[in-house]
């Protein structure tokens, strides 16, 4: 692989890694959800430093060109990430339901207590 391209890849991955860590330290990303991204950074970094690995992995599953290998694995990775996100959204949805319901019942109690106080 062209050395310029390789350096470009490594810098991009490092930039992405820094971005992830930056938002982690600012608490704008939960560590729980960022583990996938940190893992992806590690894999991408290794592959940019040793690009011949990609070729070997590709041949292992019968993909002849490096670009196809990259696209296939990137696609699979995206699928996993998006699926995980859908799961997280469903989980949050359930929590919002519970919160909304409890809030509404509490609001009713507060309203009634206030009315009682007003009358006294």
């Amino acid at each position: 692989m062209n050395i310029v391209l390789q350096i470009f890849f490594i810098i991009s991955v490092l930039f992405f890694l820094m971005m992830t860590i930056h938002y982690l330290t600012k608490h704008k990303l939960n560590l729980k959800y960022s583990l996938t991204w940190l893992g992806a950074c590690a894999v991408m970094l290794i592959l940019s430093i040793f690009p011949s690995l990609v070729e070997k992995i590709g041949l292992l599953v019968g993909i002849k060109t490096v670009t196809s290998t990259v696209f296939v694995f990137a696609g699979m990775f995206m699928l996993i990430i998006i699926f995980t996100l859908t799961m997280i959204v469903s989980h949050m949805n359930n929590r919002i339901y519970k919160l909304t319901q409890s809030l509404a019942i509490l609001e009713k109690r507060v309203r009634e207590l206030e009315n009682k106080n007003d009358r006294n």
Partner: protein
Amino acid sequence: MNSKVLIIIPAYNESENIERVVDNLIENYPQYDYLIVNDCSSDNTEDIIKRRNYNYISLPVNLGIGGGVQSGYLYAVQNDYDIAIQMDGDGQHDPAYIEKLIAPLISGDADITIGSRFIDKKGFQTSALRRFGIKFISLVIRLCCGVTATDTTSGFRASTKEVNKFFSLNYAQDYPEPEAIVAAALNGFRIQDVAVEMNERMGGVSSINAKRSVYYMIKVSLALIICRIGTAKRRKK
């Protein structure tokens, strides 16, 4: 009869009907408590129920019929009601049938009763297409869990304390009526049909229109099958 009974009235944009429905309850059926669940209506439903000083909770976020009714069950559990009844806020359901609906629960013959307009075939029978849909869901339910429910989408139903507790923890979110039957049946609750007459809704719009009905059928059938598979697995454990 000393059972504490709560009537849950889910209301989403029911400003045209809610007063008539609730006033009827207060005047003629004072032995039952009621709770209006205002599901974040965008019309003036909340103003009306506030001004009339009705017993209500108001969800700050629209949760849909499933989440709305579920908050009613949660309220029933928290306030120690023996029986909870679901009744639509649009005047389709006649509270005169409540006594008939809760009788099997009090005698211990059933855990859930569902008001069905197809047993005596009297009163409002809805369109042929909808009847076909309801029959189809009814068949799916019988295949899933062996329960016979003739009016699967009926939102006029009564349930005991144990069921209310179960529903307050697990209740389907959209189009929940058929799924609730299957979930309850698979968890060992006994379900019984009770003949009632229903009226055509007097105002407002039904939540299911023609466009959505195909989506409805697919979604409900799928939900029922998934519910069946999920519970089968849990049983093995």
